[in-house]
């Protein structure tokens, strides 16, 4: 004990600082260990067992790679993974494009932009579940605004239930996901745009550069770090997006909106197959890890080649 105290006793000023800093961080770090790190380890462990509701607290048998073989070898697995990535790329792409357009509009020097900025935020601040109720009603074939509008415009002949058909259900869920994710992306892009030094624009303006040219050659390179990190963060959240799909379609119709996270939830919480569910959760982490690595590597390489500032630290 006294040995330990001896070891922990700070010898230099730097050591005192380190000790004090860690003492301040310790509570937050402990919570992370308790609620994130341990559960992660536990997920990993459970993924090799046949744990169910009865054996969750102990007594589950070790089954080796069986869960993984079943999950990856499953008939639906390839299509679920493809769908998840398609869902992520399409949704994040739309969020980034819309976010850029929105931020550019809201950054322009016009009257009333303070109000406009506030009016864009509600999808982000309102509980996701409640926003989804609104969309549920919008997509309704008989009573929803969209279907009736389409009928009036002559696009459809009669009521069209957007969530009842495979294709339209998937794209409807994407629209809702984009709706929820865009405000935050817009806000951060707007912030980055306002951080671009004004003299850059003025110099370009004096030299006769057009608006589009200024956007392309000044704004974009300057906000690239924010775009890159927001896109990655958004990609991770979209990949794990659960509530939206669950409330709109519960993964249906006929699995058309079942992404990996929905599949995980269904397996684990609805069928109480905790082992098999944990396997899917591990696969989610693995796929996201690999994706993030590739993303950052490719962008780091592109950044070097084209001189972007790289990923924001």
């Amino acid at each position, binding site marked *: 004990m006294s040995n330990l105290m001896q070891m922990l006793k700070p010898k230099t000023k*730097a050591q005192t*600082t*380190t000790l004090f*800093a*860690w003492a*301040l*961080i310790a*509570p*937050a770090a402990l919570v*992370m260990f308790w*609620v*994130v790190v*341990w*559960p*992660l380890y*536990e*997920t990993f462990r*459970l993924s090799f067992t046949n744990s169910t509701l009865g054996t*969750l607290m102990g007594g589950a048998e070790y089954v080796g790679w069986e869960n993984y073989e079943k999950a990856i070898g499953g008939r639906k697995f390839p299509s679920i993974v493809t769908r998840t990535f398609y869902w992520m790329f399409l949704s994040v792409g739309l969020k980034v494009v819309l976010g850029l*357009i*929105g931020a550019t509009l809201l950054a*322009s020097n016009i009257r009333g932009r303070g109000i*406009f900025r506030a*009016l864009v*935020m*509600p*999808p*982000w*601040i*309102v*509980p*996701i*579940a409640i926003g989804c*109720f*609104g969309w549920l*009603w*919008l997509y309704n074939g*008989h*009573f929803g*605004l969209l279907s*009736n509008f389409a*009928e*009036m415009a002559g696009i459809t002949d009669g009521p069209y239930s957007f969530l009842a058909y495979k294709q339209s259900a998937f794209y409807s869920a994407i629209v809702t996901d984009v*709706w929820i994710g865009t405000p935050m992306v817009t806000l951060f892009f707007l*912030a980055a745009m*306002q*951080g671009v030094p004004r003299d850059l*624009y003025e110099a370009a*303006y004096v030299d006769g550069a057009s608006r589009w040219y200024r956007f392309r050659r000044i704004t974009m390179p300057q906000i690239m770090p924010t775009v890159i990190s927001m896109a990655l963060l958004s990609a*991770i959240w979209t990949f*794990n997006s*659960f509530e939206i799909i669950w409330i709109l379609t519960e993964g249906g119709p006929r699995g058309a909106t079942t992404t990996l996270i929905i599949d*995980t*939830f269904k397996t*684990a*919480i609805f069928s109480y197959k905790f082992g098999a*569910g*944990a396997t899917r959760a591990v696969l989610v982490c693995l796929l*996201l*890890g690999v994706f993030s690595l590739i993303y950052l590597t490719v962008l780091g390489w592109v950044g070097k080649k084209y001189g972007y500032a790289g990923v924001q630290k």
Partner: protein
Amino acid sequence: MMDKYSLLHKIGIYTSIALFITFMLLPFVEMFIASLRPLTHLFSRPEVPLGETMSFVDFMSRFWSDKMSFQAYRDMWVTVPQLPRYIFNSVFLATAVTFISLCFVIPAAYAYARFSFKGKSVSLTLFLAVNMFTGAVLLIPLYKLLRMYGLLNTYWAMIIPGVAFLIPQGIWLLKTFLEKIPYELEEAAFVDGASRLYTLRRVILPLAVPGLIVVGIAIFIGAYAQQFLFAITFNQNRDYMPLPAGIFEFIGYQTVLWNEMMAASLVGVLPVLFIFLFMQKHLVAGLTSGAVKE
């Protein structure tokens, strides 16, 4: 000069903004209209004769009637007697999560903002990496954890995961605010013989109040928005249910009281909307200034 727009430009900008905002507010408008319509009108659908196209009047008649009223806003309290409780739970949970998170966030953010020490950047990156593992991935062990401590079906079942997943963002956000407080102030306090904790409490915290408010609101909004998943998986006790989960009670065995459901949703949004409206300027300015700095 540079920021002057031609008339055509202006029209273009305003139209685009209008479209953008329409997209963002459309579901709320639809919810509001649905909440005003009596259930009978909601489900009566004037049929268009076969072969004829729907006219604009037909279209409008499906969304507008003379019988529109705020009746649903009165009836919903009768249909779901627990509604006030659900709204209270939502606000209570978000508030608890906010204050508990801040207790962990403040000291950690201070350490990251002020000191350079061993393991700083690594641990900071690790905190950010926690974002990768949103609640949905860790549901099973979290369920086990909460059951182990007998916390299932209590407020804690929703508070603990909420706190854990909001701490990292809080630390990152507050750190950027604290970095802007001049170090000289602290040095002056040190010279006068103040201890580190005393400095944190008496010098730094008062100066950090604006930043703390922004971080607090951001956490509150996050906590208010993300209650659904933890509520449906970790809590079966109706007394502790937050609004997003409780609202499903309007979906009855035979009919869905859509108008009341929409009314209740909109009312449930009011607390967070209220806070947002008052703090909107600080929040947007705060979040953005935090994001710019690096």
